[in-house]
C-alpha cells in the first residue's frame, strides 16, 4: 500500500515538473520564470527588481580549449553581476534582474556542445551566449535557429555561422573578413610575395579561415602561396615547415588554435625560419613561457587589446582582477563573453522586450561600444568591428596596430 502511494507521488511529481517545463517553454515574458534559475537562493534579491530575465552560457570548461572557458565563465558571471548592480535590465520603466539559468560545458567537443545547448534550451532563457570553437557552435546553431532561440557566440568566427539564420549573432569578427585581413597583413605590412599557409584540415575554424585567406591571395597580383595541411592533434610540423622553407616563403601563416602554437613556432625557429609567423584570433592565450625569444616576429589578429589605455578595457581588467583575485583566464575571449552580455542587455533595453524575436531586430540595428571598438551588424548578423594586431616582444604581449 505504502509503495503504491509513493509511486503515485512520484508520478504526480513527474507530471508537475513536465507541465512546468511545457508552460515554461511557451512563456516569453520574463517575469514568469524566476524559479527555474539555478542562482542559488531565490529569496535573496539584492535591490528592488520587478522581475527577472534569464540567459544561459556555453564554453569549453574542460578539454583542449579549457583556458578559454576559465575566463569565459568568470567574465560571464562578472557581467551579470555588474548589470544587476547597475539596476538590472530596464524595460518600460521596470527593472528586471538578469539571471543565469545555467552555464554548460561543451568539453571542447562538437557532440558535447550540442547536448550542452540542449541543456541551456531546456530552460526558459532569452538568449544563449556561446560557444568558443566554431566546430562546437556550428553543432547547435541550426537547432537554435529552428526553435527561435537567440544565440550570441562570443568567439566563433567561422564564416557560415551567422548565415544560419536571423537568430544567430556574434561578438567577434567573421573569418570571411579575418582571412582577407591576414592575407593583407602578409602582403601589405610584411611585403611578402611568397607565403606558406599551414592550417588544420579537421577544424571548421582553421579550414574556413585558410579558405578565406586563399580567396584573398588568389585575387592579389604577384603573390604565390602554398597551403600545407595538418590536423589539430599534430605535434610535429617539421614536414610542413621544411616545405615552406624550400618554397622560399617569406611569411608563414599558421591560423590554428593556441594549444599547438608553441610547438609550431619552436619548430619553425629551430628549422631556421626567422620571418614573420602570422596567426588568427585563436592564438589568444598562447603560452610563450620558456621560449620568449622564439616568439619575436610573431603576430596575430585579436578582437581586443587588453593592454589598451581605454576606460572600457581598464575598468574591465581591474574589475576582473578584483572579483577573482588574479588575472588567470583574463584574455580576449573572456572580454568577448563580457561584451556579449553587456550588448545583449543594451539590445533588450533598446527593444523594450525580452522576447528573442524582438531582441534580434534590435541587435541588427545596434551600435555597441565594445572593448575592441565599435560593433555594428551587417544583414547576416555578422559583427563589423576593427581588427587589432598583437605581437610578442620577448614574451610580452604588445599592441602592434589596427587594421
Amino acid at each position: 500500500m505504502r509503495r503504491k502511494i509513493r509511486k503515485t507521488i512520484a508520478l504526480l511529481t513527474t507530471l508537475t515538473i513536465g507541465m512546468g517545463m511545457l508552460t515554461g517553454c511557451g512563456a516569453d515574458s520574463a517575469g514568469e520564470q524566476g524559479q527555474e534559475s539555478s542562482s542559488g537562493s531565490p529569496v535573496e534579491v539584492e535591490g528592488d527588481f520587478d522581475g527577472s530575465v534569464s540567459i544561459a552560457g556555453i564554453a569549453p570548461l574542460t578539454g583542449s580549449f579549457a583556458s578559454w572557458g576559465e575566463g569565459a565563465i568568470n567574465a560571464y558571471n562578472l557581467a551579470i553581476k555588474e548589470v544587476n548592480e547597475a539596476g538590472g535590465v530596464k524595460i518600460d520603466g521596470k527593472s528586471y534582474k538578469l539571471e543565469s539559468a545555467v552555464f554548460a560545458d561543451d568539453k571542447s567537443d562538437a557532440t558535447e556542445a550540442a547536448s550542452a545547448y540542449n541543456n541551456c534550451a531546456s530552460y526558459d532563457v532569452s538568449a544563449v551566449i556561446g560557444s568558443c570553437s566554431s566546430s562546437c557552435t556550428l553543432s547547435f546553431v541550426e537547432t537554435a535557429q529552428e526553435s527561435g532561440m537567440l544565440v550570441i557566440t562570443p568567439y566563433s568566427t567561422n564564416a557560415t555561422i551567422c548565415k544560419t539564420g536571423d537568430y544567430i549573432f556574434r561578438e567577434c569578427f567573421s573569418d570571411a573578413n579575418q582571412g582577407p585581413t591576414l592575407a593583407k597583413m602578409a602582403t601589405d605590412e610584411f611585403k611578402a610575395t611568397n607565403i606558406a599557409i599551414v592550417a588544420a584540415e579537421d577544424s571548421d575554424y582553421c579550414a574556413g579561415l585558410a579558405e578565406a585567406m586563399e580567396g584573398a591571395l588568389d585575387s592579389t597580383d604577384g603573390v604565390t602561396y602554398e597551403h600545407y595541411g595538418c590536423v589539430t592533434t599534430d605535434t610535429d610540423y617539421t614536414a610542413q615547415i621544411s616545405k615552406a622553407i624550400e618554397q622560399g616563403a617569406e611569411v608563414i601563416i599558421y591560423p590554428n588554435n593556441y594549444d599547438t602554437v608553441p610547438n609550431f613556432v619552436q619548430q619553425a625557429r629551430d628549422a631556421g625560419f626567422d620571418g614573420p609567423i602570422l596567426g588568427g584570433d585563436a592564438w589568444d592565450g598562447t603560452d610563450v613561457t620558456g621560449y620568449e625569444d622564439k616568439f619575436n616576429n610573431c603576430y596575430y589578429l585579436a578582437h581586443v587589446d587588453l593592454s589598451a589605455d581605454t576606460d572600457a578595457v581598464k575598468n574591465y581588467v581591474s574589475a576582473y582582477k578584483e572579483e577573482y583575485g588574479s588575472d588567470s583566464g583574463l584574455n580576449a575571449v573572456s572580454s568577448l563573453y563580457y561584451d556579449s552580455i553587456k550588448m545583449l542587455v543594451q539590445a533588450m533595453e533598446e527593444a523594450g522586450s525580452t522576447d528573442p524575436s524582438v531582441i534580434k531586430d534590435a541587435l541588427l540595428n545596434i551600435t555597441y561600444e565594445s572593448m575592441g571598438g565599435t560593433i555594428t551588424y551587417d544583414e547576416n548578423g555578422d559583427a563589423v568591428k576593427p581588427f587589432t594586431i598583437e605581437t610578442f616582444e620577448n614574451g610580452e604581449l604588445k599592441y602592434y596596430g589596427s587594421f
Partner: protein
Amino acid sequence: MTKLIQSLMYGLNLGSIYALTALGYTMVYGIIRMINFAHGDFIMVGGFTLFYTIPVMKNMGLPLWFAVVVAIGVCVVVGVLTEQIAYKPVRGQGSTTALITALGMSLVLENGALVLFGSAPRNVPPMFSLPTIELLGASIPGQTLLTLAIGIIVMVILSFFIKYTKLGKAMRAVPEDKVASTLVGINVNKIITITFAIGSGLAAIASMMYTTSYVSIKNELGISLGLKAFVAAVLGGIGSVAGAMIGGLLLGIVEILVKVYMLPGTYEAVTYLILIVVLLVRPTGLLGKAVSEKV
C-alpha cells in the same frame, strides 16, 4: 636530395621518440603478455614532472638533468603503483580483463592530470640547447641526434640486461612458464614489478626527449603518442626490444615522408594503411617470432 635527407632526419627525430615509447610497451608485453595502454600516460606524468621540477632545479642552481632523475623517480612510483593497485588483482582474470583495466587506468591518469594540472597546455622549459648540425645541406637539430643516441643506448643496455643478467634471465623465464619459474625459485610478482619499474623509467626518459622536441604538453599528450608507439611496437614485433626500436624509427620516417611527399593533412590514413599492409604480409611484425600458444 637535400629535401630527402632533411625529411629523413626529421623522421628519425619523430621515430626515435616513438621508439623510446615503444620500448616501454614491448618491455611490459614481453614479460607479462599484457598491453599496458597507460604507458603513454606515464610519459605525460613524466612531462608534467619535468615542467614543475626544471624551474626548481634552476632556482636551486642544480644541473637541469637532475629534473630527469626526479621524473624517472616519479614515473617509476606511478608505474609500480598502477601495477600494484590495478593490474595485480586482475592478473589471473585473462587478457581481456587486463586490457580493459589498462584502458581504464589510462583514463584515470588522463583525467587525474586534468584535475591536478588543469587542461591548459604548458611549455616545458628548455633543458639544454644543442647546436644544429649541417650535413649534406640538411640541418639536423641536435636533439634529433641525442634522442637517437639515447634510444640506441637504452636498446643496447636493455638487450644485454635481458640476455645476460640473472634478473634478465628470470624476466625471460616468466612469460615462458609462470609455474615452472616459481618452481626454480623466481619470485614472479617481484619480476613483474621490476618490469613495470623499468618500463615506467623508460617512459620518463621518453618524456624528456619528447619535451625537447615538442615543448607544449597537456594531459591528453599520452593518447596519440601511446597509440602510435603501440603501433610501432606491433610493427617491429611486440616483445622484441630491437623490433620496437626499428618499428618506431620506421613509423616516424614513413609519417614524415608521407607528409612531405604526399598529403600532409591526411598522413595518418596513408601511414596506417601502409602498416596494415605490412602486418598482412608479416603478422608477427618485422622481428617478431611466431610463437604457438600452449593450450
